[in-house]
């Protein structure tokens, strides 16, 4: 049994075996295997060393990738434990490492000499592997310091309660220069047997530190991969909305951090915020921008709610920086992909719609053309028959009804032909403001009767366009008639003209009942109507569509039930050559 254990009552009994230092080494390695965090690891190691030896203070100084770690544990209930980290490029503390500040104090200077074997090795103060021990430091320590090219006799005096101490240098991975320092209030506390044991423990501690780091790195890597895998899984969910995606993704970040218990996260996208559980103000944060197609759209942010020791970037690891950069990058790609998919879907829907309209138009025009001739016969012969003065009044009334019905049918055919662009527009230079005003002339009376206020907003200096004025009148009239019918309780009708890039626009906006998305999809389809049978043919907007298309323009509709509708007709500002062409056609 070692001498120090015989002299002192040892707290705890976990190391009462024949080989306490071997047992201690194995315990340290087991602890490393669990991948506990550094501070906790050093504290536990210090506690175990204090259990096996009689020392009052255990100091462990280690280095890793440019950072110095210093822990100091002092016997007590509970153990008093301090842990410091400094980076070589950050603030330097004289306490932390000897080679940084060799001249600061006798103690630091001694540690420096021990670390660099900067002493006369024949001295009985030093062991073969650089160990240094003092049995009673009330007497000054004398040793010969080996400066380059000269020897200096150093005399060091320490004051305080410490009587004996041992310094054991050890190596962790490629980083040499780690120190295990034991201090004790008793004289001659460290026997040869203890020192031998401690040397073994120190070497094992070096191995354990490396192993612990590998365990932590592996665990962090697993956490990161779990996070990325979780993200991939969410993205792969069919039908998941962008909101659900971000809300799901933000929950994945905190568990991927080194200190998940105090970590939280949030994501911002286009001004919308998505937060992980327990989100709140923090002591440190790490963020990455979400950049879609070169434009910043938001950010990904991880937050520690408690103070944590300095690591690579604040309390965060380089790996964590990479992770949130990756997450932000992935999100940007997903958002971009979703956007283009949505645009593609919309375009496809529009194409399908246009295609359907064109097919219907061709069909309608074909039917209209075929019907036109027999209709001409019906109308012509009916008109001839009516001229017969010998007709009985009842027959002549019936013939008048045939004529009226035929005229009605002719109107429908005409509209179908306009819709299918079978009646070429008679184009000339026109001013859209003037067209609008002329069209409104016929409509004002009807509007005021229905309690509708007309608001005119004509753009000043509108460029002239090349168009068929009577067809444009038709467009305005059809749109206004619909608007009036959409406002049975009255309302406001806005007629606006606008100058746009290479185009002029006519906007007809009402405050009426609006349309559902379902209705909106079908409004240009011939014969689709929401009106009563006698009120409309279902061709008004088809005609509008036909006219606008034959003018090379577009029509856009926005509507919501209860909120009114807005029709925007955009027509290109034509060239004079377009008129000539149309004149040649005629």
């Amino acid at each position: 049994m070692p001498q120090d254990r015989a002299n002192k009552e040892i707290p705890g009994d976990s190391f009462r075996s024949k080989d306490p230092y071997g047992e201690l080494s194995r315990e340290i390695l087991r602890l490393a295997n669990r991948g506990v965090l550094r501070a906790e690891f050093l504290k536990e190691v210090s506690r175990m060393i204090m259990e096996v030896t009689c020392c009052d203070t255990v100091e462990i100084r280690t280095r890793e990738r440019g950072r110095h770690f210093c822990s100091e544990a002092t016997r007590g209930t509970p153990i008093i434990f301090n842990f410091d980290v400094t980076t070589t490029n950050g603030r330097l503390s004289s306490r932390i490492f000897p080679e940084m500040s060799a001249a600061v104090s006798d103690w630091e200077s001694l540690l420096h000499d021990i670390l660099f074997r900067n002493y006369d090795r024949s001295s009985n103060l030093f062991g073969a592997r650089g160990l240094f021990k003092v049995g009673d430091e009330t007497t000054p320590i004398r040793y010969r310091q080996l400066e380059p090219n000269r020897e200096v006799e150093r005399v060091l005096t320490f004051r305080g309660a410490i009587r004996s101490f041992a310094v054991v240098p050890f190596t962790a991975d490629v980083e040499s220069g780690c120190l295990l320092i034991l201090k004790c209030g008793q004289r001659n506390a460290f026997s040869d047997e203890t020192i031998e044991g401690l040397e073994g423990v120190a070497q094992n501690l070096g191995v354990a530190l490396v192993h612990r780091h590998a365990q932590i790195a592996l665990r962090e890597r697993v956490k990161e991969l779990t996070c990325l895998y979780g993200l991939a899984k969410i993205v792969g969910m069919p039908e998941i909305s962008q909101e659900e995606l971000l809300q799901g993704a933000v929950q994945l970040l905190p568990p991927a951090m080194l200190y998940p218990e105090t970590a939280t996260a949030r994501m911002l996208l286009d001004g919308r915020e998505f937060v992980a559980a327990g989100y709140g103000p923090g002591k440190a944060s790490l963020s990455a921008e979400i950049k879609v197609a070169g434009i910043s759209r938001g950010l990904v942010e991880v937050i520690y709610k408690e103070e944590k020791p300095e690591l690579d970037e604040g309390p965060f690891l380089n790996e964590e920086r990479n992770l949130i950069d990756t997450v932000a990058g992935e999100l940007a790609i997903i958002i971009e992909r979703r956007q283009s998919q949505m645009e593609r879907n919309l375009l496809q829907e529009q194409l399908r719609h246009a295609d359907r309209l064109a097919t219907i138009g061709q069909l309608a025009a074909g039917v209209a053309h075929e019907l036109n001739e027999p209709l001409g016969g019906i109308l012509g012969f009916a008109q001839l028959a009516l001229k017969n003065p010998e007709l009985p009044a009842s027959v002549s009334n019936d013939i008048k009804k045939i004529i009226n019905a035929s005229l009605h049918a002719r109107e429908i055919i005409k509209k179908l032909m306009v819709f299918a662009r079978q009646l070429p527009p008679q184009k000339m230079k026109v001013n859209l403001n003037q067209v609008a005003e002329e069209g409104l002339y016929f409509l004002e009376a009807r509007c005021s009767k229905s309690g509708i206020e007309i608001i005119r907003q004509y753009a000043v200096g509108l460029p002239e366009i090349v168009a068929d004025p009577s067809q444009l009148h038709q467009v305005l009239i059809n749109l206004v008639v619909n608007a009036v019918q959409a406002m049975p309780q009255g309302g406001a009708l806005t007629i606006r003209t606008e100058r746009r890039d290479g185009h002029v626009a006519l906007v007809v906006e009402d405050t009426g009942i609006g349309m559902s998305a379902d209705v909106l999809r079908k409004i240009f389809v011939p014969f689709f109507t929401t009106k009563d049978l006698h009120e409309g043919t279902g061709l008004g907007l088809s005609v509008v569509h036909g006219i606008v298309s034959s003018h090379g323009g577009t029509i856009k509709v926005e509507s919501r039930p209860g909120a009114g509708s807005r029709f925007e007709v955009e027509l290109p500002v034509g060239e004079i050559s377009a008129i000539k062409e149309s004149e040649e056609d005629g």
Partner: protein
Amino acid sequence: MADDSSTILVVDDAPDTLEVMQRNLTSQGYAVLSAPGVPEAIQILDNSPVDLVITDLKMPKVS
């Protein structure tokens, strides 16, 4: 009432249209000639004085 001497030539491939036009114009007092196609119309124009031609623009067999 139209001048007695006015002669109108109506050209249309649709017999019904032709008949309606012919009867309408006749009732207005015109002398009406009718042709169901371009060759017939040209033949009439070559042989008779015509004051006015009313014709369908698009008819079969006309280039």
